[in-house]
Structure formats: C-alpha cells, structure tokens
C-alpha cells in the first residue's frame, strides 16, 4: 500500500491522521469523564486509534509487514477474547494487564532504539532511557498487580530494609542509564542490564503493596505508561504518541490522586509509608452481642416494610450476589416496598465497583444513590439491608478518634429502624476493625454466603 502513495503525500496523510487521532483522543476522554456522555467517549477514542493504526502502514520505508500484521493479530485477538470474557469483578486486574502491555511496548521501543545506538542529540537519549525505565517498571509492576488481584500471588512479600534495597536498585538502574546516555558505545550488555534492573525494580516495588491498594497503584502505573509513551514519542518524533501519552500522563496523575483521596488515603501512604500494610486491627471495645436472624424472618420484615435501603459492599462482589439482590429488590417493589440502593464512594475494592456490578445486574441507575444523596433518608427507612459491606457502614468513623477509619464519611445505616446484615461470619472488612453497627439493638445478622442468602430471601419473600 505504501508503494502506491508518494512518500511526501503519505507523510502528510500520516501527519493529518495522527492529528485527527490526537484530537479524537482528547474529545473521547472529555466525554468519558461525564456520566451522560461517557458511552460515546470510547467510540470517539476508538475511531482515533483505528485511523492512526491504519495509516501507519503507509509510513515510508518500512519492512517486516508480515511480522507486523502477525503481531497485531496475536496481541489483538488474545486481548479481544480475554477482554470480552472477563467477569465484571475482574476488571481491575485486566486493566492492569493491558496497561502493563502498553508499558512493555514503550520499553520495547526504547530497547530497539538503544540497541541500535548511533549519534543522536543528548536529549533524545535521555528521553529514550527515561521512557524505557518508566515503561519497564510499569510493565513488571502491572503484571504483579494483575497476579495479586487475580489471586496468583496471595501474600504481600515484605522484609526489613525493603525500601533501602529498592532505592539501591533504582540508583543502580539510573547509573547504568546514565552510562548509556553518555557513552553511546556502552553496548548491548549495558542496555540489557538496564532493562533487567528496571524490570526488577517494578517487581520489587509492587510486591509489598497490599491487594486492596492495587486500584490506586494500577492508576499510577497507567499514568506512568502514558508518560513513557510520550517520551518514546519524542524519540520517534511521533506527535500522536507525544500528545496522547502526555494527556494520559497528566489525566492519570490527577485520577490517581482523586482515587487515593476517595479512599481517604494519601498517595505517599499507599506507596511508601505504609507500603501497603493494611491498617492494623485497632479501635475501642464494642458493647453488646450479635443477634442472628433466619432468612424467613428477615423476608417478612422486608416484605412489610414501606421503604428499604440496600447497602452493598465488597462481600457482594465476592459472592457475585448482585443478580440475586436485584431479583429480591424487584420482588419487594412488586409488593409495594420502596427500594433504593445506597453506594458509598469506596465500597468494594475499586472506585465505582458497586455501580458497575449493579449496572451489570440491570439495576437502573436512578435507583442508585450516592452517599450525599441518601444519607438523610436512612432516618425514614424501615429496613437497611447490608450485604457484604462493613467498613463503609462502621459508625466508628464518625465517633471513635482512635479508629483507623476515623473521619471517613460513612453511610448512616445505623439510623434505620431495622438493620439486616448479610455476611459469612465474624470476618472483618478491609480495615480489619470491629463494627459496632453489628451489635446494635435493631441489628440482626443473617449469616451465609451473599449469593446463597439472597437466593433464600427471594424464595422466602415469594412465599410471604
């Protein structure tokens, strides 16, 4: 195809297409950041990507077209299949995986250029090396994040002096990088060593971070991949990469901060000071006892309520109970109960986790309410049904200064006339602390796996 077009016409076409792609990416991201227009946004960005990819085949003086098509085929088909098949609850790790691949690709570009060597301006070498470093860290780090969330790595590996070791490796990587920058004859060994060190750095940085902090870490690596792509864009003199990469780098940085803030943590805390240690169990003693209830009794209670508020949490995701819960809600609605869903901003393990799950189950989003919208309404609710939520309804956040979650706004489920809590046993939530809500007079515990219990409730309500 590239033979049909004169080199200069091809290059104007390519440049113009890249311009259009960069424009569409920005428009797409803009639309994706507002709920009303979000669905269209990905289509715009996708169109940009398609245009940019297709015209790149016309780049003058290229070879290896067969390899290129094969590569796109292999990578594209695998990603397509896995992306289509993955369950909604497994989204975060898939994002980590695809993001890591992008970082790896940026590192590969850097490797190709650095192995090639040659006389280039200093700035170009600096950018190639930095982009390679960041890309490689994002690659191996994202793979670890994937493995942790997928349950392939179960423990967070920690040892004394870990941060010192990581710092030493970072310095070593930078030293080898500097060697490559200032001595263009450093040779293939140095380049290989550089990338091995960078990959090790990403690995070791990510291993100690707890699985629950992963969404923030993934978002950070996402921003880093953007930056790596931008740097390699400068190296290849490719404006689309520069702009898309930088835009993602900046947007991703902000997003990372917003996510950390929504979880009531600082980014530094996620990455370093705690290095992923989930808060140690703490907080004051709890008075009273937990009072169990049977599904049939809970069903009666709900069936005759005027208004019920459902509070889903991480346990609903684990149990995949969202479909059953929606069935239950519909049952209740058909009996005239007013049902609303209350979603805490950090319920679950990723921002918007519950929204995505409920949306998947078909819950219309006008039944779903934010913390600010619904908190005043618990007063007037006859039943609050807590399913797999714990920290986000813990009143200690309001009152107990010594609690690790003190200060986090919570859903005021304790204000409802009756509270029913579905969970498997005495397990604590993410923060590992006791929950006084479970011991209140109006609270009843409905033990069991979320999905199973919800199924029982559906049956029981039918036969009321």
């Amino acid at each position, binding site marked *: 195809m590239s033979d049909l077009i004169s080199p200069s016409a091809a290059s104007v076409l390519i440049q113009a297409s890249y311009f259009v792609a960069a424009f569409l990416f920005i428009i797409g991201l803009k639309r994706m950041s507002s709920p009303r227009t979000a669905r269209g946004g990905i289509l715009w960005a996708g169109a940009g990507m398609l245009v940019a990819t297709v015209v790149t085949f016309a780049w003058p003086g290229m070879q290896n077209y067969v390899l290129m098509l094969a590569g796109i085929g292999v990578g594209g088909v695998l990603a397509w299949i896995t992306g289509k098949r993955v369950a909604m609850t497994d989204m975060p790790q898939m994002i980590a*995986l695809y993001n890591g691949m992008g970082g790896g690709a940026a590192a590969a570009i850097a490797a190709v250029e650095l192995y090639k060597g040659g006389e280039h301006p200093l700035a170009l070498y600096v950018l190639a090396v930095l982009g390679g470093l960041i890309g490689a860290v994002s690659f191996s780090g994202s793979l670890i994040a994937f493995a942790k969330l997928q349950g392939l790595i179960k423990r967070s590996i920690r040892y004394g002096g870990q941060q010192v070791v990581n710092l030493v490796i970072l310095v070593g990587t930078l030293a080898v990088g500097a060697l490559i920058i200032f001595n263009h004859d450093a040779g293939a060994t140095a380049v290989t060593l550089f990338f091995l060190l960078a990959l090790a750095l990403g690995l070791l940085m990510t291993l100690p971070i707890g699985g629950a902090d992963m969404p923030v870490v993934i978002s950070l690596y996402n921003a880093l991949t953007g930056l790596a792509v931008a740097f390699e864009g400068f190296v290849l003199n490719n404006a689309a990469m520069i702009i898309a990469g930088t835009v993602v780098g900046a947007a991703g940085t902000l997003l990372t901060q917003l996510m950390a803030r929504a979880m009531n943590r600082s980014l530094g805390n996620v990455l370093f000071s705690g290095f992923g240690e989930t808060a140690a169990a703490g907080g004051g003693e709890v008075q009273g006892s937990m009072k169990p209830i049977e599904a049939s009794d809970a069903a009666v209670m709900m069936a005759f309520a005027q208004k019920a508020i459902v509070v889903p949490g991480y346990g609903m995701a684990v149990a995949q109970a969202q479909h059953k819960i929606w069935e239950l809600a519909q049952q209740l609605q058909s009996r005239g109960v007013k049902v609303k869903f209350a979603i805490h901003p950090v319920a679950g393990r990723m921002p918007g986790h519950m929204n995505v799950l409920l949306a998947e189950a078909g819950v219309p989003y006008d039944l779903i309410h934010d913390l600010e919208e619904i908190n005043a309404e618990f007063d007037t609710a006859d039943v609050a049904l807590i399913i797999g939520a714990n920290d986000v309804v813990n009143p200690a956040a309001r009152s107990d200064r010594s609690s690790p979650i003190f200060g986090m706004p919570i859903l005021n489920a304790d204000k409802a006339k009756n509270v029913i809590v579905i969970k498997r046993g005495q397990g604590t939530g993410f923060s590992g602390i006791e929950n006084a809500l479970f011991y209140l007079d109006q609270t009843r515990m409905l033990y069991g796996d979320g999905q199973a219990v919800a199924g029982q409730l559906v049956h029981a309500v039918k036969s009321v």
Partner: protein
Amino acid sequence: MIDGFIALYIFMLAAFTGYEVIARVPVILHTPLMSGSNFVHGIVLVGAMVALGRATTPVGQVIGFIGVVLAAGNAVGGYVVTERMLEMFKASGERKP
C-alpha cells in the same frame, strides 16, 4: 526531532489539557476512566509498528515484534474492557429494549 522549546510547550499544553479535561470527574467513573485512558496510550502501537518496520537486525525484529504484540494487546484490550464497562451505565428508561 521537534525542537526543544516547542517540545516543552507541547508537553505543557498536553498536560494542562489532560488535567483539566478530567478534573471534577465523579467517583463512579474513576474505574472506566482509568480504563479509557489506559486505552488511549495504546497509541504506542503506532510507535511499535514503526520500530519494528525499521528494524533490520534479528534482535531488533524480535523486540519490535514483542512490542507490537504488547501494544496491540494494550489497544484492543483497553478498548473492549472500557466499552463493556461504559455500556453498563444506562438509566432505567434506556434499559427496557
């Protein structure tokens, strides 16, 4: 290569644009937006294609090929996942077919 200061300007402006475009995004869109921006840096595919296309040594071809595979995974996977997630954000009216 794009001249130094011009490069800086482009970098600054793109960074402002990225930052401002997603300022004030609601929490429920954090994950889809992370996924969407993950898709956008899949543009690294065009760079990987060029790197492979210009590679002449076997080493260059192998690394270039790996780069293209990874980049294609980023772009395609990022798209599919984002699209699936955003597809779910519908109001009750839209749901009934």
